[in-house]
């Protein structure tokens, strides 16, 4: 079984693309799939989207420097989309324009449009001279669309925009010849949709939305792993959970059966995924040899420093001695008195006698230092003092059997202490639970003690009487004694010296930092089918499919079941198609036709579909132009086959409170 490791993919900041004149002058449509997870942006002439970035902005906290009167506010650089290189470090500062799958926060949306247009290299003044194809949520509320149009027309001056639903774009345009009838299952980041389409018309009234998506699955997986490995809470991050979802998670075709398989140890051993968390070997992981080496190194460095210091001191003293000798010469050969006094003053000496004293002192010191240096070099050559012996050095045994019998004995004694401790703990727990034998016995004794019988109370005559209080005390008689604990440690120490393999800490450290992921691989994505696993009252995906079918007429049901299409970011999960097919067959009439297909490259189909839409000859017809926006109203948009329906927001009825 090989052990996997996290890749921890970091996003690389996008380059600023060139703005070709062919695109600039032809006002080529710009296709934007504005998903709640990723934003995909490209020109309608591109093969693949030029930009793909997470719809996120990170606002680092403001750092105020208010030392002086003038408060300098350093506005930190806003990080947008792929600028956020390591998402985990910014986790708490992240913001998105989405609330569930609907854009509500338009300040953030503006930042993201800025990012988008800047990185496309657009340089026309005061306007973005390209019509936009923009995806939006199914049944996007008018308020949200109105604000979006306002932003696009008035801030960026786009000539026109066509709104459409991502899943419908995928269905109608991403493939060459889509059937007229389809049941689209779109698995998004925030929500999943089940959309029936009959004769190329979306049945909005029969559509249902499940408010669970990739995000929910990721957070669910994240949390179960954190709870399973409380020691690694910090290193199990959301982005790692996301990586796991994309690499090893799968959908069980039959969840119950899958679970049963995992109860078999052989299956468990064979299918478990081991993932190594990064770890750093702590100080305790050092082997004895390394520790010794380190100590030796330290000692060597210390002696070196000392030696250098001594050398320096020696040189200094010798220099001073030389100077003082010069002064002495001067005194002896009878220099001028004033001059001598002046020089002596410089050396902080009062008289000629002091000079003599200083000279002898200095000579002594030099002699001492020299001796020390000599001694130090001798020591260095000599063997360093023997390392303190470990407390329990290996005892010498005559043969292996003796050693084994000794070890077995130690092990047995150790086990005895451990069991005694366990028993004690168990009793302590039992005593405080009702309805256990220990608890009832205790209560019986207490009530007996409390009973007062006049005349013949001879309690306490014998010393043993008092022991009864020990048995009913909290510890239940005896508690873990220090002596026992010491003994246990001693035994463990002995075992460690003789059988290091069992107590090997280095190997344990590696294994301690491994995540074993078994059932979780299936348990997390199962959330889509069983939202109650996270406490949601909503029906699961299969149930919703059945419900949506039941809303349609029987002949429509037939047509829909014949063409079930799965798309969206999660559609790639292994086993999804088989699972949906199986669940669908179980609810459809016997031997009726059921076909399920998963779209290829399902995460990008919405963008491809929108691009094909923008390439159509009649594209202009569906464009909401600035003129229409101003004439009809800010919330208006043009309907087409892949769009939402337009219902003008009714005027609010004024309720007269007074009447």
């Amino acid at each position, binding site marked *: 079984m090989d052990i996997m490791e996290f890749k921890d993919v970091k996003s690389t900041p996008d380059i600023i693309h060139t703005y070709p004149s062919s695109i600039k002058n032809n006002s080529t449509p710009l296709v934007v799939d504005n998903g709640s997870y990723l934003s995909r942006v490209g020109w309608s002439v591109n093969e693949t989207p030029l930009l793909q970035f997470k719809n996120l902005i990170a606002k680092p906290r403001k750092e105020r420097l208010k030392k002086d009167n003038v408060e300098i*506010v350093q506005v930190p650089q806003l990080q947008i989309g792929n600028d956020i290189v390591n998402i985990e470090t910014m986790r708490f500062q992240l913001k998105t324009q989405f609330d569930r799958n609907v854009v*509500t926060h338009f300040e953030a949306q503006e930042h993201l449009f800025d990012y988008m*247009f800047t990185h496309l290299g657009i340089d026309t003044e005061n*306007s973005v001279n390209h019509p936009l194809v923009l995806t939006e949520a199914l049944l996007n*509320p008018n308020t949200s669309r109105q604000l979006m149009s*306002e932003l696009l027309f008035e801030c960026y001056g786009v000539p026109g925009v066509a709104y459409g639903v991502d899943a419908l774009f995928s269905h109608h345009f991403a493939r060459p010849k889509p059937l007229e009838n389809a049941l689209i299952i779109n698995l998004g980041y925030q929500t999943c949709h089940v959309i029936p389409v009959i004769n190329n018309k979306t049945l909005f009234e029969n559509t249902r939305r499940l408010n669970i998506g990739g995000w929910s699955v990721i957070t669910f997986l994240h949390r179960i792993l954190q*709870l399973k490995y409380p020691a690694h809470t910090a290193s199990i991050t959301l982005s790692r959970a996301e990586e796991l979802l994309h690499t090893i998670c799968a959908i069980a075709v039959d969840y119950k059966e899958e679970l049963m398989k995992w109860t078999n140890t052989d299956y468990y051993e064979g299918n478990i995924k081991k993932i190594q968390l990064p770890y750093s070997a702590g100080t305790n992981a050092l082997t004895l040899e390394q520790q010794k080496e380190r100590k030796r190194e330290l000692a060597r460095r210390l002696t070196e420093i000392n030696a250098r210091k001594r050398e320096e001191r020696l040189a200094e003293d010798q220099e001073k001695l030389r100077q003082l000798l010069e002064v002495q010469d001067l005194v002896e050969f009878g220099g001028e008195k004033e001059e001598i006094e002046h020089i002596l003053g410089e050396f902080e000496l009062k008289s000629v006698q002091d000079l003599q004293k200083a000279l002898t002192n200095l000579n002594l010191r030099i002699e001492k230092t020299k001796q020390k240096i000599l001694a130090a070099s001798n020591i260095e050559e000599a063997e360093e003092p023997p390392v303190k012996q470990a407390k329990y050095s290996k005892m010498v045994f005559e043969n292996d059997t003796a050693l084994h019998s000794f070890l077995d004995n130690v092990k047995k004694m150790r086990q005895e202490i451990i069991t005694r401790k366990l028993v004690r703990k168990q009793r302590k727990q039992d005593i405080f639970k009702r309805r256990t034998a220990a608890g009832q016995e205790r209560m019986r004794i207490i009530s007996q003690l409390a009973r007062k019988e006049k005349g013949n109370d001879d309690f306490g005559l014998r010393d043993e009487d008092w022991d009864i209080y020990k048995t009913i005390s909290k510890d239940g008689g005896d508690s873990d004694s220090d002596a026992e604990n010491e003994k246990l440690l001693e035994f463990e120490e002995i075992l460690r010296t003789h059988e290091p393999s069992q107590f090997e800490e280095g190997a344990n450290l590696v294994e301690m930092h491994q995540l074993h992921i078994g059932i979780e691989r299936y348990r997390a994505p199962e959330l889509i089918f*069983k939202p109650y696993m996270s406490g949601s009252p909503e*029906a699961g995906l299969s149930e919703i499919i059945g419900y949506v079918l039941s809303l349609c007429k029987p002949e429509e049901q037939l047509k829909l079941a014949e063409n079930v299409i799965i798309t969206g970011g999660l559609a790639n999960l292994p086993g999804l198609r088989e699972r949906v097919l199986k669940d669908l067959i179980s609810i459809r009439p016997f031997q009726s036709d059921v076909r399920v297909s998963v779209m290829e490259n399902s995460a990008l189909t919405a963008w491809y579909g929108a691009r094909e839409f923008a390439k159509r000859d009649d594209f202009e017809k569906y464009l909401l132009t600035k003129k229409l926006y101003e004439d009809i109203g800010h919330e208006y948009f043009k309907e087409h086959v892949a769009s939402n329906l337009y219902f003008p927001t009714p005027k609010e009825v004024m309720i007269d409170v007074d009447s």
Partner: protein
Amino acid sequence: MSVEEQKTEQKLVFKSSSLQFQSANKKKCVWKGLKQIISSEKALPWPDNCVHYGSINAPPSFKPPEKFSDLSGLPAPYTDPQTRLRFANKDEYATIIELPMDITAGYLTLRGATSIVG
């Protein structure tokens, strides 16, 4: 106006200055959340044939939820009366009684079983 906003205005030539959400709402503008939008939408007198965001929510589940072990995810026939955690076998029970409070609480919140009644 802060320094950064001036910068962005200078930098991004394609923006017209007539409307900008960021500078127009320099004081922290509170954007309506989705819930608010839906509820205010609901209050309006829509025509009968109209479908909106709030009306396509998934129906509640009609099947009784199955019980799975909180620890392992296996089908769980038992519930520990003290922690309210579900478990599949006695090994798991042995783990459960050792678990600290924060972990048991974490499992319960994950399952959404924190209400006292349920």
